[in-house]
């Protein structure tokens, strides 16, 4: 590139520090949002992979049982009678630390003598004098804890750690502090309580049972042969599955969540892209005369194009680097929100630190520069191809912009038609849905200039009547500078419609969940083991307790629920077994199936109900067959109905207690829903129930209202990250609009100087600038309303459905529309304050001198 041209370009950027700075900031924010989300996700995924690596290690296959695990005799038979080598028993579950409320540790019970080939961390223990391995094996109720976790819990070697498992108190002695992980990050023992098999069996109430048996099988034909032999040896119920299936299934659970987060962060970048486009367009438009002169002097189109592009990339590079730094800081903050959501919705994962893989950073640099180059291409090309005469004449330039408005509107209509067609395609593809969503945004953006012209023309008579000359001047200047004003309006429109649509989506979702909770949480009181109120009940209530609670005074009826998961080669299936009170039937709302036929089939014919997400994910409907692995081998269950359920996005299979007990040996109950005599006071009954439970187990008794409130709290927490991204998109948009309007108004300094010279008062000038920006805000707001609603409908009926399988009704309140309008106008008016302040304070003589 020509050095003089580059120098001129650089000086222009330096003499317009506000504009340059805001462009850098816009790119930085856009990149930061993408980087932070990406790093938070990568960290969560890596932590998850690490915890899987820790508990699965080098095992290639696992023998798994039903809800109550495997009989340990199977392991003994394999190891002792069949001489099977490379097999390790595992008992695992979760235990609570009452001393640190909310803290859960993963209990991993293993056989130390079989561990070395399986789990890498074991090799580190032998050399470590801080671990008393002999005591771990020989003494009951002893455990190892990672040094970091022990420190967090205020424990040292030899101390006793108090635990609560299934509502009952236990204590283990810490006989060693293990390393948290090795330098290569191959394992992570944070929040893992390591015991031998018998201690784990005692703590988890699994005497004589194992969670699974890990196996290392060779690859190839030899492995297949061993697998065949193994399957022949095992009774029908246990299943041998490759370990990858399990990991993949769990990772699959969060895929839609991650995709949605990425899409949201890309939306923020898209708004940032507008900002870059805005800035570059202004930088080009401001210098149209200079560019015209340069072209007249013989500078080639290619040189002009390269100069503008290099200029943009320089801004992009600085912005991207700032964005990387800011993104890493922001990522630390978002990590907590991402982990919290994964913990609330999917599985427990502990993430201690933000992972910063170089590849993620390199991708962010490419993205930042790529987006900048893309956004700068149009203005750079425009600057290069425009004839020098046109470049030097503002009105010719604006006339060209007017022609472009028509072409842009036409393209917009075509893009929207494409988006609509894509969204209406009968497909379950989330990717296709997102393409449709972004095409919708692009189409609306292309239509914005024409719509702005139409709206301002429509408003012009009213504005003139109300604000007189100032109003007319303001409206006219919006129309006369279309090359600048419409870009600012489009950027604001996209941001406001994004904010509006996400708001409508969250509001509709919340309303649907609240309605669902009202219908499903019908009992007066719920009894379960202590667990987070909003989560489904976990653990097992003592059978004697269930009987006594049912017989308690004031209790007229009760339902029980058993929640469990069944692993199989097809993945993890969540099963809910209900003993339903007739009161409970009306709590189910069916999407498919006739309720009068559903309940007899459910209670008496071993038919099952599937939740809406399960039906969506597996493409099932009424009368379809679901194959499940029971304790007596695999069998098919007929689907009697599909019901609405917002409790799990993976979906659940519901069956009657009778069906469950016929097919599985587990007799546990996870929770009880109690219907009270209307004349009794729930508080008194609650106390009675606590007294009844006292000698058996510590239980949690909560009212239906508390469950509803806690569930909505979790809902709000789950969407906290979406709200943060929504806010960031709004901030990026505000900076974009601020930058665009500031540049637009400052560019008119000379014109304002002339108006001041011929008698426009500072107050009138203030009014003129604010009217112009306000008018642009009104235009952006009015356009954002239909676009925002269209995006919300897409999010609700396409993106949400394809991501999570839930359907819900769109709820659009006049309040949210008014808020969006207010946001657009406020952002635009705020953006006008600085130039108005600057212009009204400046001396007209100085303004007239400026160019």
């Amino acid at each position, binding site marked *: 590139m020509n050095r003089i041209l580059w120098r001129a370009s650089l000086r222009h950027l330096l003499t317009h520090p506000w504009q340059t700075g805001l462009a850098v900031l816009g790119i930085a924010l856009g990149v930061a949002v993408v980087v932070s989300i990406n790093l938070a996700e990568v960290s969560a995924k890596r932590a998850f992979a690490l915890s899987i690596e820790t508990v699965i290690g080098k095992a290639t296959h696992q023998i798994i049982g039903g809800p109550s695990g495997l009989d340990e005799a199977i392991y003994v038979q394999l190891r002792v009678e069949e001489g099977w080598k490379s097999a390790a028993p595992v008992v695992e579950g979760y235990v609570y630390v009452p001393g640190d409320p909310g803290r859960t540790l993963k209990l991993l019970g293993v056989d130390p003598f079989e561990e070395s080939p399986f789990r890498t961390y074991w090799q580190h223990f032998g050399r470590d004098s801080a671990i008393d391995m002999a005591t771990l094996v020989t003494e009951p109720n002893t455990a190892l804890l990672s040094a970091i976790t022990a420190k967090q819990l205020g424990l040292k070697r030899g101390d006793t750690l108090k635990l609560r498992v299934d509502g009952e108190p236990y204590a283990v002695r810490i006989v060693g502090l293990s390393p948290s992980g090795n330098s290569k990050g191959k394992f992570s023992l944070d929040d893992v309580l390591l015991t031998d098999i018998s201690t784990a069996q005692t703590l988890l109430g699994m005497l004589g049972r194992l969670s699974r048996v890990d196996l290392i099988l060779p690859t190839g034909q030899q492995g297949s042969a061993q697998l065949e032999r193994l399957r022949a040896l095992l009774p029908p119920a246990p299943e041998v599955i490759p370990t990858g299936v399990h990991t993949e299934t769990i990772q699959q659970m969060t895929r839609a969540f991650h995709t949605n987060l990425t899409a949201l962060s890309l939306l923020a970048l898209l708004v940032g892209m507008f900002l870059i486009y805005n800035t570059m367009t202004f930088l080009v438009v401001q210098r149209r005369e200079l560019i015209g002169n340069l072209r007249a002097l013989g500078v080639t189109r290619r040189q002009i194009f390269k100069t503008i592009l290099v200029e943009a990339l320089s801004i992009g590079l600085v912005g991207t680097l700032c964005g990387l730094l800011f993104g890493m800081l922001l990522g630390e903050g978002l990590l907590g929100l991402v982990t919290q959501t994964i913990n609330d919705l999917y599985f427990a994962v502990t993430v201690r630190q933000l992972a910063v893989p170089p590849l993620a950073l390199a991708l962010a640099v490419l993205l930042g520069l790529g987006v900048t180059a893309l956004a700068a291409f149009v203005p750079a090309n425009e600057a290069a191809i425009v004839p020098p005469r046109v470049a030097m004449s*503002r009105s010719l330039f604006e006339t060209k912009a007017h022609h472009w408005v028509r072409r842009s509107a036409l393209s917009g209509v075509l893009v929207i038609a494409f988006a609509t067609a894509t969204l209406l395609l009968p497909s379950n593809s989330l990717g296709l849905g997102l393409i449709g969503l972004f095409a919708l945004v692009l189409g609306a953006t292309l239509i914005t200039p024409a719509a702005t012209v139409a709206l301002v023309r429509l408003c012009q008579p009213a504005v003139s009547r109300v604000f007189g000359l100032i109003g007319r001047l303001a409206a006219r200047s919006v129309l006369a500078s279309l090359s600048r004003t419409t870009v600012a309006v489009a950027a604001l429109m996209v941001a406001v419609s994004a904010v509006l649509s996400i708001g409508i989506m969250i509001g509709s979702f919340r309303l649907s969940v609240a309605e669902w909770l009202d219908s499903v949480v019908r009992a007066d009181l719920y009894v379960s083991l202590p667990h987070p109120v909003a989560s489904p009940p976990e653990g097992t209530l003592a059978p004697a307790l269930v009987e006594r609670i049912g017989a308690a005074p004031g209790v007229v009826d009760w339902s029980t629920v058993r929640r469990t998961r069944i692993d199989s080669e097809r993945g993890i299936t969540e099963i809910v077994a209900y003993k339903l009170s007739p009161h409970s039937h009306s709590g189910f709302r069916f999407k498919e199936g006739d309720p009068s036929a559903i309940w007899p089939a459910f209670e008496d014919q071993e038919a099952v109900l599937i939740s809406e997400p399960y039906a969506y994910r597996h493409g099932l409907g009424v009368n379809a067959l679901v194959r499940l692995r029971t304790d007596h081998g695999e069998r098919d269950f007929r689907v009697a109905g599909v019901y609405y359920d917002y409790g799990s996005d993976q979906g659940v299979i519901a069956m009657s207690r009778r069906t469950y007990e016929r097919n599985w040996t587990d007799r546990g109950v996870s929770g009880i829903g109690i219907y009270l005599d209307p004349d009794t006071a729930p508080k008194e009954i609650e106390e009675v129930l606590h007294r009844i439970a006292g000698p058996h187990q510590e239980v949690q008794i909560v009212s239906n209202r508390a469950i509803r409130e806690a569930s909505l709290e979790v809902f709000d927490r789950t969407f906290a990250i979406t709200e943060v991204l929504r806010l960031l998109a709004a901030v990026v948009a505000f900076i974009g609009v601020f930058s665009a309007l500031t540049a637009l108004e400052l560019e008119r300094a000379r014109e304002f100087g002339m108006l001041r010279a*011929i*008698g426009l008062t500072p107050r009138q000038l203030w009014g003129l600038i604010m009217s112009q920006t306000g008018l642009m805000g009104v235009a952006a707001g009015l356009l954002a309303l239909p676009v925002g609603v269209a995006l919300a409908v897409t999010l609700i009926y396409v993106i949400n459905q394809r991501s999570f399988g839930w359907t819900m009704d769109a709820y659009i309140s006049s309040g949210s529309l008014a808020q969006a309008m207010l946001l657009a106008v406020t952002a635009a008016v705020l953006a006008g304050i600085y130039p108005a302040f600057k212009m009204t304070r400046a001396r007209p003589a100085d303004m007239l001198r400026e160019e």
Partner: protein
Amino acid sequence: MRKPAIIKLRNLTKVYQEGEREHIVLREVNAEFNEGELIVLLGRSGSGKSTLLNLISGIDVPTTGEVIINSTPLTRISEQARTLFRRRHIGFIFQFFNLIPTLTVEENLLLPLELNVRNNAEEVEKALHLLDEIGLRDRAGSYPDRLSGGEQQRVAIARALTHDPLLILADEPTGNLDLETGHDVLDLLDRLTRQAGKTLIMGTHSREVVGIADRILTIRSGQLMEEEATP
């Protein structure tokens, strides 16, 4: 009989601060201008002509000294009052025309009337008559940058007269025009201001315009000196 002075400049000094250095543009300038006079301010580029015109109009303030127009001490009143005074009593013509690019020729012309809330039918008709006078009636709907430089300056002259001001200030009105167009514009300016009986102060570096002047003042080294006007 000589008309009374309507513009009085008393000890006007204007100093610009350039970093550490002070640059004195006008030094203790004193002058009086009468109603209906056509005054030419001569001086080289950077001599202070524009600064003096800015001070007279009140769009800039002197470092010391006073500007009194029609008994109004411009330097002692508020910015708001100065603006309103300027709006009512002063018409401007600039070297670079400075028409509002987003308004048509007609709208530019009517702008001072609208600012003064005098846009009644009679005043508007009078203003539009000026378009005939400058020969641009047929370009009333055009935007400024579709006009030639000479045409733009003719619109600027008409705009300066629309609201019937007391004083017209012209800063290098022909500085951006070719010789012939410049002459045409000067003739128009001379004719219209004399016809309306207005005071015109015109800053220029060109001696060619002195022929139309009633009085010629030269600015040199920040001082104002009067020359004999030659018929």
